[in-house]
């Protein structure tokens, strides 16, 4: 079973990596930070709300203490005392009550009652027509009685009323709870002349408390259900009791301040920030992704170009049109690729030429004249000497087998070449008889050097063709090779007979030209191929070959 791996392009990789590089650090850093911040803000919120609660409690205590204190002072005021006895001081009493309420917004109203609990005056004005509940009047009466009995005009009696109708009329709020204070107004001879009733609104207390906090923080005031034990003035606002109870002096209560804040308030800021960061991360991912895309295009374009060149190479197109790139590395790569392409192209061209040349050689070797002449000789020999004819056919067979073998490799040993040359010369000797003389001088140490196939044979054939064959007397062919150093050996193929003629476009020139070309292919100009006459009239072809030339099989090309 093969597992097929899904491939992903370079461009996609770059884009994803860039986007991740922008986004991942942000989230990796932001998430723990946000978590920590949330916890910290929660703790901070708790502390702040506790501080707010403490502050509200202190403010309420202060306000209510102030109200008690100022109300007591008011009852001691001469104008108030005279007002409960004479309406001539009504205006002054109104001013005093107005001042008191102006200073304390939590006071919903104030009544001044005379000795018979009749309303002398009230503030705000509309309270004139709002009769006090019976229970409150009873409280006022009892307060005055107690003050007289105890000789205590500092008495402050508080009570609670849950009379919704009265509360609504006084305070215009839906909160039915009011608590009020009755304070005796001293008259002559330590007898109270009246009473001051201060009505405090729970609704306004709530408003006062909430005014101390900033939205969305809310403050709620509630009365404890458990009776409050302390009777000290500082805990006044605990000294309350429902009017409905038999006695208004029992079971003082306390206010509980509760501070609330919606949990999402502070977290909203964090959430908003987190959302913003997420949005920013997405934006960054998009931006960096785009940049990555551009980058990848810049990077992959040269690679794509290189790919196209490589594909063209496969189609034997070695042209590299554009070697320029924004990146120096890629430019260097293109230049190297172009250089390689050029060399490959040259090599391919050379190989083609070599192959063409080899084929040409082979084609030349396959010249029908030699075969024609040889077969004629064989035919003649058959009638004369069958054994000789058979020998000729054998040699001819060997020769052409060798020629066929020559096409399989680019080189073979000098020994093989010389065997072929001997066979050839032997066959030519039959044809030319005494007209052809030849000598071969090849040192033993050179037998194994690699030479291009049919190189020497071609030159020998050329020598016979242009030197021996045209001459009536015939001539001699010398074949010599000698070592000229560790790397080279020198070859001479000379012939006598017909005088030397310079190379031309005829067949003599073609064989020599092919040989020269073959040597040039192998050695460039280092083969020193030379052809020319000598002083004694022989034609000589000299060249050199490397002693270390490796044999390359045809199937390895």
């Amino acid at each position: 079973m093969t597992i097929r791996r899904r491939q992903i392009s370079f461009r996609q990789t770059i884009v994803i990596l860039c986007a991740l590089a922008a986004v991942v650090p942000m989230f990796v850093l932001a998430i723990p930070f946000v978590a920590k911040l949330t916890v910290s803000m929660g703790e901070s919120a708790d502390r702040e709300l506790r501080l707010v609660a403490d502050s509200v409690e202190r403010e309420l205590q202060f306000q209510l203490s102030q109200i008690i204190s100022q109300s007591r002072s008011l009852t001691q005021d001469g104008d108030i005392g005279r007002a409960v006895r004479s309406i001539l001081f009504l205006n002054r009493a109104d001013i005093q009550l107005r001042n008191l309420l102006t200073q304390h917004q939590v006071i919903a109203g104030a009544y001044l009652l005379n000795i018979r609990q009749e309303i002398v005056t009230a503030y705000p004005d509309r309270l004139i027509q709002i009769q006090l509940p019976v229970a409150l009047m009873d409280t006022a009466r009892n307060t005055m009685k107690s003050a007289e009995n105890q000789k205590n005009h500092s008495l402050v009696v508080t009570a609670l009323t849950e009379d919704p109708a009265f509360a609504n009329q006084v305070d215009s709020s839906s909160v039915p709870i009011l608590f009020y204070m009755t304070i005796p107004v001293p008259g002559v001879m330590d007898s109270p002349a009246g009473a001051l009733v201060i009505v405090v609104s729970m609704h306004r207390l709530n408003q006062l408390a909430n005014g101390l906090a900033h939205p969305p923080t809310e403050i709620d005031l509630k009365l404890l259900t458990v009776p409050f034990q302390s009777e000290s003035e500082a805990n006044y606002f605990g000294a309350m009791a429902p009017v409905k109870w038999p006695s208004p002096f029992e079971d003082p209560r306390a206010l509980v301040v509760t501070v609330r804040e919606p949990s999402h308030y502070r977290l909203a800021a964090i959430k908003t920030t987190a959302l913003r960061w997420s949005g920013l991360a997405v934006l960054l991912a998009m931006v960096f992704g785009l940049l990555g895309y551009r980058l990848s295009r810049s990077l992959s374009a040269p690679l794509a170009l290189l790919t196209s060149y490589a594909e063209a190479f496969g189609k034997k197109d070695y042209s590299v049109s554009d070697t320029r790139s924004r990146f120096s590395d890629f430019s260097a790569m293109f230049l190297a690729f172009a250089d390689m392409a050029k060399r490959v192209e040259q090599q391919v061209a050379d190989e083609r030429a070599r192959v063409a040349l080899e084929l040409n050689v082979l084609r030349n070797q396959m010249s029908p004249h030699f075969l024609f002449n040889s077969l004629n000789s064989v035919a003649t020999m058959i009638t004369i000497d069958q054994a000789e004819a058979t020998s000729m056919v054998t040699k001819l067979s060997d020769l052409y087998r060798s020629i066929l073998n020559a096409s399989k490799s680019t080189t073979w040993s000098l020994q093989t070449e010389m065997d072929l040359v001997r066979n050839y010369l032997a066959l030519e000797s039959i044809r030319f008889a005494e007209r052809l003389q030849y000598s071969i001088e090849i040192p033993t140490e050179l037998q194994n050097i690699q030479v291009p196939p049919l190189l020497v044979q071609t030159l020998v054939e050329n020598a016979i063709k242009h030197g021996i064959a045209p001459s009536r007397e015939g001539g001699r062919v010398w074949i010599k090779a000698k070592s000229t150093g560790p790397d080279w050996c020198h070859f001479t193929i000379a012939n006598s007979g017909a005088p030397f003629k310079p190379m031309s476009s005829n067949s003599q020139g073609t064989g020599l030209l092919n040989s020269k070309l073959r040597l040039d292919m192998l050695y460039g100009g280092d083969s020193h191929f030379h052809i020319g006459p000598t002083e004694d009239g022989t034609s000589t072809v000299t060249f050199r070959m490397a002693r270390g030339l490796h044999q390359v099989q045809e199937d390895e090309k």
Partner: protein
Amino acid sequence: MTTTGILVGLILFTVTTSSLQAKDSAVLWHSLNGKPAELLRQFIFEFNRKHPGALREETGIDLIPALLTQMETGTLPDAVLAPSDVIGIVKKVNGSRIPHDFVHQPMSPEVRSTVSIGGIPWGVPILDGNTLLLMYNRRRFREEKPQGRDWAIPARLLQDFAARFSGPSSRSLPVAWKFDEPYLFLAFASAYGVRPESESIDLAAPAVTRALEEYQQLGRSFPVLAKCGYDCVAERFYRGEFSAVINGDWALDAAIQVLGPDLGVAPLPIFGTGKMRSLRATHALFFPGQSLSGPRGKVLKEFSQFLTLKKNQKRWQDFAHRVPANTTLQEEMAHHENPLDQALIQALEQSTVIPSSEQMLVLWQALGKGLHLLLNGTLSVKESQEYMVSLIQSPSSK
């Protein structure tokens, strides 16, 4: 004796003599403002030239509450120059009766009645009037030529007012006054038959109910009028926001100073079918704490006589545009060519004397409070009337 010792001695002497002088000076409380206050100060100055350090004034005091309060502490002033209805508390503050030959000044019965309770005089009238006047900007009205003593009544003016006040459909506000002032309300209520009786006014009377209803309706028809305070009859009148205002003769001098010849004065207009009648009182000297019998009684007598000298009485008229209590001078004013003088006298004649009684003091308080509660919508007419009556009848009014 060292220099220091001399200096200390001088300081002690100065302080001692000052305090002695202060102790010997008679203290006069009053509630006058403007030109009348200035004139009174001048009188005191002139009097003190003959009687060095005899008298000093104290002003800016809420007289009734202050007197009642001071009564408790025993530090009453020697004399009080106040509207005659303040005399209603003369018994509470242990005031001195005025002896028969205390001053020699011709006084009309009306003037005399303002300072008498039960036929017994308790004060010395100095000024007469405290009447309400219709003050108008003459540039806004066409006046007819005065005919005899009816000079001050521009017929066209009255017709305009009558027409404009004929019903709530009227849009323009012809005249303004301090709407929640009981003194003005009673003048308005007089058009509906509300009159002072012997010692007080019966606030329970149906006429009062009617007057309260009309007054409430008037305020609703003219919200600008309903909100009018002192600024309406002063700055806003002078600026021309109101063409005419109803104000007391105590404000006449200030109006003259601002408007000059453009100020016109006329008696009160007609409402419906009734004509407004102002109340009337004198400004009188009275002497709480039996001061006439005290060490400064002589000074007080001399000062009273000084103020009631005819030449000094005339100075109230000439300088402060107030009507003197001297009847002879009043008669002379009536024949003056000066239209203002004639208007003042005519206003006096057309006004009703306020009873000088303790009940009136209570009434002012009750009326003031009740009117305030009516006009601010706290109480209805019936409720406010009942409230006023209850205040008057409560034990605290006694």
